[in-house]
């Protein structure tokens, strides 16, 4: 995992104060996590409910990503969950941020991360095998 370029992009995001968690995921499956596989402690207590809600959102993403759905977000308690969908895929970069975060600034870096990850996915030598990762992190 240490050399996974996608995990390194997620590591960079995790260093931002207001990114409590970030993953590359699809329905029922976390494909890539940050290198140390840790989220910030704030989300631990509500992770289970957020995870269930996320899976429902991925149903929508699966349905509409082909129609041009690029972003979706929901608010749960004091958190917002942002989905940056990879073009024409059922995978998304998912980030959990506090509800009162300066979201505009975070969005800029999330978009940069989406572009970086998408580039990695499309570079043959660096491609993360998401099928293999799906097996490793399958949570459903």
């Amino acid at each position, binding site marked *: 995992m240490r050399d996974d370029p996608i995990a390194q992009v997620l590591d*960079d995001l995790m260093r931002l104060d207001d990114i409590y968690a970030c993953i590359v995921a699809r329905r029922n499956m976390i494909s890539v996590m940050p290198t140390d596989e840790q989220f910030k402690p704030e989300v631990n207590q509500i992770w289970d409910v957020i995870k269930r809600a996320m899976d429902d959102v991925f149903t929508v993403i699966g349905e509409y990503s082909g129609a041009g759905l690029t972003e979706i977000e929901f608010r749960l308690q004091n958190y917002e969950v942002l989905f940056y969908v990879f073009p024409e895929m059922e995978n998304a970069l998912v980030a959990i941020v506090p509800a*009162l975060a300066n*979201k*505009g*600034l975070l*969005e*800029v*870096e*999330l*978009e940069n991360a989406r572009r970086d990850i998408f580039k990695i996915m499309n570079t043959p030598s660096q491609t993360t095998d998401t099928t293999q990762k799906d097996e490793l992190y399958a949570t459903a």
Partner: protein
Amino acid sequence: MKETLETAIGMSRKWEARDAGREVAETAIQKLNRPPDFFLLFSTIHYEKYGGFQEFLNGVWDVLPKGTPLIGGTVPGFMNNYGCFSRGASALAVSSTDMDVAVGVGKNSKRNPFRAAKQCAEMIHNQLKDTSYKNKFLLNFISGPVIPSIPGVGQKKYIRSGFVSKFALQALGLSQKLMQKGLSREDEIFEKTVQQLPDYQMILGTSMDDYKGIKNYQFFNEQLLTNAVVNLGVATDLDLGVHTTHGMKPTDLHFTITKLGAQRHAICKINNKPAVPEFLRLLDWPEGFLTEETMLHTILYYPISLRRLGRDVPVVTPLIMKDSILVPCVIDDGEVSILTVSGQDLIQAVRENLRLFNDIQPEFGLLSTCMTILQTLGHKTNIIQEELHSYFKDKSFLLFYSAGEGTYSKDKDITYANMSFNTAIFGKQDTKK
């Protein structure tokens, strides 16, 4: 001797301060054939936690030739030829055989803005008074606002308590004098700078952190400063122009400011009624609608067109204190109006601005833009980057986000506005157009 002009954009996304400092300088100067004549440096606040800004500057000076004029500071984000970023550092390095350059500094900008502005402007004047180049430019970069932490309340954008608000409004001046916390007074500094250097074309920007208003830093050569104004003066034969656009549109909602407070920084009464309830009534928003949270999503889209010395000053409401609206600049009373703006309007303002420079073949550009645009557009701010990229093509440009910005030229006078897009473009007049 043949005229040479080279420009380069430096960039670093490294986390450690010293490494980032080195990289931002290296990536800029490696594209130049001779040492830069000035180096403009902007960084997000993140390096405070990853080694500190003195280390960041030390990293820059590990690489940058000694004596290169350098100014800059912390900003909420920036965009350049490579993209749009709210974390990292970027620099504009310019090298020219036909250019005179000066840098200046004035300290204690919140305690004594006029003295700081005068000191800084005099440094520029003294260094460039004998220049033979016809066009003069100034970047006026000022320490931005720091929201004072009120005991028991903290740093809030919306204060509900009447008692705390009354205390805070009265203490604002004192806070600025004693602790240098409060509004940045960039409008006053800019006015004074224009008075001192009326022949310069100017662009104004302010230093800020990540939109929180807790701390900001300025860079002046090797020095790391707070509460300072730093100037870059350039004399050149290049054609240059500055321009401000904002995209805010008038509504039919007008009101009269009938009482000002906090040294003309607070609207206490409008239409002879407490300002905030009357403002909500005009917008048809229910009482209690504005909160710390809703302010981010609502009030940014309804700026107010205020007046100052006969000029229109469109501003965003940064702070509400019970019944009073605190504004970022000194204003006059009288009739004003509520404006409205959308994301599309903001992007249109960029296009409108660049259209004015259609007859210039750009060599490089420096731009300051309101950080509320970054907050409002989020990653859609990349649309602005694409517009700039298509205008500048392979020529360098650096845009920094700011908390109070504007431009000045003799022809257009001072334009100070929030939510605005400000350009300074250097190039050659295209005589064919």
